[in-house]
């Protein structure tokens, strides 16, 4: 008789299989398999049932499929102070990635979108190259809660609007969209007051389109023109273009810009917050674009 037969006969002999089993009769490994089928919030809810469920909820197998395939690279890049990824459980890695992690000083943030398991990046205007940004005749910098970075740049008046950015990041394989978050008209909010006053009188020069472009290291290049004056007074995400990442293990290099350099007229009254990059699945789910 081979080793296989005796293993079938004796392995798991200690686990009695009752004819009418209860959940409590399941070994921890089976409970982990059940939990793997659930969303993170559901897993964490059921972890409170009893100690076996809690223990099962900590298993790497439950969280591994919820992480991007290149999470080990991301951990090395983003958690460098916290030790190597070997010392962190998959659950810990997941919980940390779910919350925005700053990188590149405080000018950029990355997080794992819970609902779609995609990696998202936000780049503050402070992380972009803006012509004349330090010249107070043209741009002012405003502290505000309307931005996740708590600051926006406001264009008072200028002939030459040019904003450029670069990013090198190990995006997991997939399709992504890039947006500029912009608003025409300056919203001001007095401290302690909820009233927002939108100063639209200063807005002018947007009757000619703005040029957007995006280039990625896999050779894709998108250029488009868009009029900004449709939704004055509201923050809008202007879609620049999409890019595809095929290899999660090679950094993707992006170059993107917006420009309106027609010198026949000045532009005024633009609020610039940040650039966002979302996986296409997240864009579809969030439905605010």
């Amino acid at each position: 008789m081979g080793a296989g037969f005796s293993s079938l006969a004796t392995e798991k002999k200690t686990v009695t299989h009752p004819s009418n089993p209860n959940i409590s009769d399941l070994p921890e490994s089976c409970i982990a398999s059940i939990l793997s089928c659930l969303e993170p919030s559901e897993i964490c809810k059921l972890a409170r049932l009893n100690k076996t469920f809690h223990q099962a909820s900590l298993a790497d197998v439950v969280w591994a499929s919820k992480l991007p395939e290149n999470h080990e690279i991301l951990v090395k890049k983003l958690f460098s102070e916290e030790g190597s990824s070997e010392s962190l459980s998959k659950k810990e890695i997941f919980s940390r990635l779910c919350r925005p992690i700053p990188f590149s000083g405080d000018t950029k943030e990355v997080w794992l979108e819970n609902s779609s398991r995609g990696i998202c990046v936000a780049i503050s205007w402070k992380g972009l190259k803006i012509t004349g940004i330090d010249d107070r005749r043209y741009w002012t910098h405003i502290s505000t809660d309307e931005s996740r970075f708590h600051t926006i740049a406001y264009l008072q008046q200028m002939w030459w609007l040019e904003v450029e950015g670069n990013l090198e990041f190990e995006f997991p394989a997939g399709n992504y969209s890039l947006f500029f978050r912009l608003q025409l008209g300056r919203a001001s909010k007095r401290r302690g007051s909820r009233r927002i006053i939108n100063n639209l009188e200063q807005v002018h020069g947007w009757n000619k389109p703005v040029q957007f472009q995006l280039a990625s290291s896999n050779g894709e290049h998108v250029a488009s023109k868009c009029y900004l004056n449709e939704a004055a007074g509201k923050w809008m995400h202007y879609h620049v273009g999409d890019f595809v990442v095929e290899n999660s293990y090679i950094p993707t290099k992006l170059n993107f810009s917006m420009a309106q350099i027609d010198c026949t007229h000045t532009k005024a009254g633009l609020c610039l917050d940040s650039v966002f990059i979302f996986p296409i699945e997240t864009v579809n789910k969030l439905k605010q674009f």
Partner: protein
Amino acid sequence: MSSPEEKTLILKSSDNEEFLVKESVAVQCITIKNLVEDGCDLDAIPLLNVDSKNLAWIIEFMEKYADSTSTDAEKKDFDTEFVKKPFNDVLGLILAANYLNFPALMDVMCDACANEMKLWSVEQVREKFHIQNDYTEEEEKAVRAENFWAFE
């Protein structure tokens, strides 16, 4: 001697019922696959932890999944009907799939079990599925605090 593709195995349940199954179908259970590859030459393979009720279901599932003519949509429809069993039977199949190391069946049954459990609050799950709470109040609060991030 029959050709390898047609070789059949006899699987014997814990209550001594014998089932004839094609080897190519049965090896979806990795435990059985390992036995066959080890050169097991028994007349019948005894499955000490699987009764005839569960074994009949498992064979039904195995045969559907081994059928190369069934499409993904047909398999999905089959799964939907297959899991419509009393909850205790769902658990019994999970235990059997675990014992036999049958990944496809494990996935389908665990998913069914998860779908059943996620509908309820923690207290309701404990009541419905007779789960003993072995936490003190402080311990349970600690678990809740540990996982606050999942609900943000």
